[in-house]
C-alpha cells in the first residue's frame, strides 16, 4: 500500500518537502483524503452558488414574456455555463467530496490507495473549473449548450466553446484519475473482514460510479478532442461539406452523457441508502437487491444513450431498440425505490434534517423517474423532447434527486467532518423552503413544456400563453435561493459552536462513526476487523433469542478487535495509539503537475509559448513526484 511505506530521512530535492499538516498552507500540499474531500466540497459549493446565480438570472429573464433584460448572446452563455457548472463543477465534485472523505473511512482504511494522485485529481478539477470560468473575462463564455452540439459549437465565432472543450478535457483527466484511484481503493484497501457484501451501499455505489466514469469519460475525451481540433486546427470531423457527421458528435456526447446521469444520481442513492436505515433504526431493506439494482443501472446505463436522439432521424429500428432499453432501466430504479419504502416500513422514524432530505429525495425522484418513462414512449417524446418538459424531468432527477440526496449527506456527515452539529431548526427551514421552492420552480415546467415552450429560448412572445407558469417558476427559483441562504447561515453559525462532538451522534451503523469526530489523520488508531454488514450497529446492539434487539452493555463486546491480531494486518501499523502509524507526507508535486494543464489550455487559445511552459511545468511536477517517496 502506497500510503504506508518505510520512513527515511532524505535531503530535500528541488523543493524542500513540506511537512506541516496544519495551517492554511497545508491545504495546498495535503494528500489526506479527508482534507481533499473537504476541498472538493467547498469548491463544489462555491460553484453551486455561482451556477445558482446564473439560474436566477435566467429565471429573471424568463419571468415575463418578451423581456430584454438579457440579450441573446449573454443568455446563451448563461444557460450553457449553468449546465456545465451544475454537472461538472457541482454535482460531480460534490459526490467526489463524499467519496473521498467517506470511502476510506467506511471500508476501514487509513487513506485512498494513491494519496498524491488523489490530490492531483482535486487540483486538476479546480484548475479546470477556474479555466472555464476565466472565459468570461477572456473573450466570452461557452455559449453552445452543455451538450455542445456540432456544428453550431464548431462554427460559433466566439472563443467560448474552445474553453469548453479544453476545460472539460482537463476535468476529464481529473475524473479519470480519481475514478481509477477510488475504484482500486474500494477493491484493495478494505479492512480485514470487509468483504464486498459487507460494504455499505454508499461504497458500492461509489465503486459503480468510478467504473462508469472510467468507461464513459474516454468517449467524451475523444469527442471533445475532435471538437477542439475542428475549432483550432481546421479538421473536418463535424464538417458536413467535407463528409463529416454532426451526428457522430451526438453519439460520442451521449455515450458519455447518459452514464453521466447515473454518475450524478447514484452517489445520492448511496447516501439515501445510508441515511434511511439510521433514522428508521432498522437495516436497509433488500441490501443485495439495492446493490444489484445499482450495478444493473450502471450497466444498462451504457445502453440507452440514443434516447436523447429520438428526434435526430436514426430510423425506427434504432428508436425501437433504445425505447425498449430505456424502459428496462426503469425496472432496477423501481426496485431501489420499493426497497427504500420497505426500509421505512415498521421503522422508528426520526425526522432529523438528513432524514427529511432523504424522504424528499425519494418523493421527488419518483416524479423524475416517471416523467423519464414517458420519454421512452418515443412518439410522445417527439413532442416533449427539447421542451421545458425535459428541463422539468432532469431537474427532478438531478436537483430533486442528486442535490436533495447530497444535502441530506451534508447534514448527516457534517458532525463527523467538522465535529459540530448543524442546527436542526435552520436545517428544517432549509428543507421545507427547498422542497417548496423546488416544486414551484420545476413543477410548472412540465406544463410549460407540454404547452409548447422549447428549451434554450431567450424569450417567448406573450401570445403563446406561457406567461403565468413562467412567473410562478421564477418566484420558485428565488425561494430555492433563500433556502440555500438558510443553509449558508446554518453552516457558518455551526463553526461558532465549540467542537465537541461524540463519535456517533446519530446511533449509526457504519464504520466511519466508529472513530472520533472529526477523525484523526490516520482515521483509525487500530484498523477495525469487520464481522458483518452494519458492523458498528452489531457492536452496539444484539438480538435476543426472541428476536428483540437490545443494546449491548457499554464497552461490552464493542471492543474493536484490531487487525494487528491478524496475519494480514496493515503493515504492522495496527498497534499503538497513532504514534507508530506512518501516513503519507504532504507534497507540492500534485499541485504543480496539475497547474500545467490550464497553462497548456491558454497556450492553445492564445499562443504557442504557453503550451511549452505548461508542458514543462506538468512534466516537472510528474518528474519530481516520481522521484519523491510517498512518505518520509
Amino acid at each position, binding site marked *: *500500500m*502506497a500510503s504506508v*511505506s518505510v520512513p527515511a530521512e532524505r535531503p530535500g530535492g528541488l523543493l524542500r518537502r513540506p511537512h506541516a499538516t496544519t495551517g492554511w498552507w497545508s491545504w495546498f500540499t495535503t494528500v489526506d483524503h479527508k482534507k481533499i474531500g473537504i476541498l472538493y466540497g467547498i469548491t463544489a459549493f462555491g460553484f453551486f452558488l455561482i451556477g445558482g446565480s446564473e439560474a436566477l438570472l435566467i429565471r429573471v429573464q424568463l419571468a415575463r414574456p418578451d423581456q430584454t433584460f438579457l440579450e441573446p448572446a449573454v443568455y446563451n452563455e448563461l444557460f450553457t455555463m449553468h449546465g456545465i457548472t451544475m454537472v461538472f463543477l457541482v454535482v460531480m465534485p460534490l459526490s467526489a467530496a463524499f467519496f473521498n472523505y467517506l470511502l476510506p473511512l467506511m471500508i476501514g482504511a487509513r487513506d485512498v*490507495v*494513491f494519496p*498524491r*494522485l488523489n490530490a*492531483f485529481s482535486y487540483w486538476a478539477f479546480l484548475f479546470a473549473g477556474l479555466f472555464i470560468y476565466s472565459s468570461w473575462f477572456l473573450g466570452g463564455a461557452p455559449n453552445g449548450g452543455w451538450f455542445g452540439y456540432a456544428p453550431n459549437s464548431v462554427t460559433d465565432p466566439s472563443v467560448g466553446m474552445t474553453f469548453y472543450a479544453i476545460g472539460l*478535457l482537463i476535468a*476529464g*483527466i481529473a475524473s*479519470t*484519475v480519481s*475514478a*481509477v*484511484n477510488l*475504484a*482500486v481503493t474500494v*477493491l*484493495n*484497501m*478494505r479492512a480485514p473482514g470487509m468483504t464486498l457484501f459487507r460494504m455499505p451501499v454508499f461504497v458500492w455505489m461509489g465503486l459503480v460510479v468510478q467504473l462508469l466514469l*472510467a*468507461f*464513459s*469519460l*474516454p*468517449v467524451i*475525451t*475523444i*469527442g471533445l*478532442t*475532435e471538437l477542439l*481540433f475542428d475549432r483550432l*486546427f*481546421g*479538421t*473536418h*470531423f463535424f*464538417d458536413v*461539406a*467535407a*463528409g*463529416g*457527421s454532426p451526428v*457522430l458528435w451526438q453519439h*460520442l456526447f451521449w*455515450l458519455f452523457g447518459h452514464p453521466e446521469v447515473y454518475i450524478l444520481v447514484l452517489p445520492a442513492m448511496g447516501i439515501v441508502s445510508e441515511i434511511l436505515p439510521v433514522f428508521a433504526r432498522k437495516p436497509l431493506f433488500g441490501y443485495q437487491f439495492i446493490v444489484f439494482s445499482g450495478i444493473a443501472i450502471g450497466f444498462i446505463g451504457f445502453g440507452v444513450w440514443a434516447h436523447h436522439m429520438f428526434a435526430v432521424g436514426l430510423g425506427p429500428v434504432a428508436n425501437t431498440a433504445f425505447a425498449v432499453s430505456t424502459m428496462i432501466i426503469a425496472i432496477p430504479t423501481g426496485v431501489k425505490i420499493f426497497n427504500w419504502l420497505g426500509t421505512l416500513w415498521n421503522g422508528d422514524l426520526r425526522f432529523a434534517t438528513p432524514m427529511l432530505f432523504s424522504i424528499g429525495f425519494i418523493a421527488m425522484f419518483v416524479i423524475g423517474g416517471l416523467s423519464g418513462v414517458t420519454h421512452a414512449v418515443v412518439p410522445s417524446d417527439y413532442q416533449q423532447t427539447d421542451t421545458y418538459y425535459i428541463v422539468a424531468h432532469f431537474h427532478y432527477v438531478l436537483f430533486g434527486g442528486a442535490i436533495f440526496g447530497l444535502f441530506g449527506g451534508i447534514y448527516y456527515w457534517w458532525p463527523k467532518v467538522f465535529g459540530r452539529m448543524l442546527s436542526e431548526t435552520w436545517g428544517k427551514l432549509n428543507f421545507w423552503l427547498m422542497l417548496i421552492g423546488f416544486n414551484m420552480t420545476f413543477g410548472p415546467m412540465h406544463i410549460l413544456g407540454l404547452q409548447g415552450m422549447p428549451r434554450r429560448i431567450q424569450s417567448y412572445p406573450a401570445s403563446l400563453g406561457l406567461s403565468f407558469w413562467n412567473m410562478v417558476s421564477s418566484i420558485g427559483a428565488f425561494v430555492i435561493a433563500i433556502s440555500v441562504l438558510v443553509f449558508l447561515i446554518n453552516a457558518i453559525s455551526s463553526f461558532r459552536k465549540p467542537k465537541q462532538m461524540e463519535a456517533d451522534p446519530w446511533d449509526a451503523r457504519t464504520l466511519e462513526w466508529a472513530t472520533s469526530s472529526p477523525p484523526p489523520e490516520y482515521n483509525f488508531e487500530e484498523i477495525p476487523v469487520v464481522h458483518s454488514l452494519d458492523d458498528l450497529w452489531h457492536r452496539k446492539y444484539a438480538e435476543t433469542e426472541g428476536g428483540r434487539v437490545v443494546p449491548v452493555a457499554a464497552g461490552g463486546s464493542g471492543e474493536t478487535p484490531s487487525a494487528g491480531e491478524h496475519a*494480514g494486518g*496493515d*503493515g504492522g501499523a495496527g498497534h499503538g495509539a497513532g504514534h507508530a502509524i506512518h501516513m503519507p507526507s504532504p507534497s507540492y508535486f500534485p499541485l504543480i*503537475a496539475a497547474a500545467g*494543464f490550464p497553462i497548456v489550455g491558454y497556450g492553445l487559445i492564445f499562443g504557442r509559448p504557453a503550451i511549452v511552459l505548461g508542458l514543462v511545468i*506538468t512534466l516537472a511536477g*510528474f518528474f519530481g*513526484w*516520481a522521484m*519523491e*517517496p*510517498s512518505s518520509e
Partner: protein
Amino acid sequence: MASLEHSVAPPVSDHAATSTGLPSLKLAMWLFLASDCLLFGALISTYVLYRGASTTGPFPADVFDIPFTSVSSFVLLASSLTMVLALAAIQRGDVGRSRVWLLATALLGMAFLGGQVYEFTSFVREGLTLKTNVFGTSFYVLTGFHGTHVAVGVLMLLTLFTLSFAGKITQDSAMTVELVGLYWHFVDIVWIVIFTVVYLIPTGNPGAGG
C-alpha cells in the same frame, strides 16, 4: 495527455497485503487500460465512419505504402518481445540484461516513431494533411494519438533505463517494469487493430460509406 497519469504512480513495491491479494498498482493499470480501450474505440470508429466519406482526395489507396507500414508493424511487435524479455530478466534479478532489453525496446519504439514521422511527411508531400479531407482528419488524429502513446512509453522506458544506472531498478522493482510493460503491450495491441482496420482492409469507392 490522458495517458500520462499512470507514469506518476509512485514506484513503491507493493508488498503490503491488499483485500483482493492483487497489487494495487497493477489493478489500477489494468483498469486504466480497460478505460483506454474506449478511447481508442471512439477514435477507430470515427476513422471507420470517415475512411470512405471524403469528398476530395487523396483517398487511402492513394497514399498508403503497405510494405513500409508492415515493417513498422514488425518493429513494434519485436519491441513487445524485448519488453517481456526485459521483464523476465529483472524478475530473475539480472539487472544488466534487463537494462539492455529496456534500451532495445525504447530504440525499437523510437524506430517506429521515426517511421511514423517519415510516413506523415510523405503523405503530406502527396497532398494529404489534417485539413485535406475527413480521411486525413481521422487518419492523422487516430495514428497521432497512438504515436503519442508510443512516445510516452518510450519516455518511461528511457527513464527506467536511466534509473537502472543509479541502482534504482532491482529485482524488487520488477513491478515497475511490469507496469510499463503492460502499457507497452497495450500500445502494441492497439497497433495490431489499427494495422488491420486502417491499412489492410480495403476502402470502398470514394464517397461511398464503408
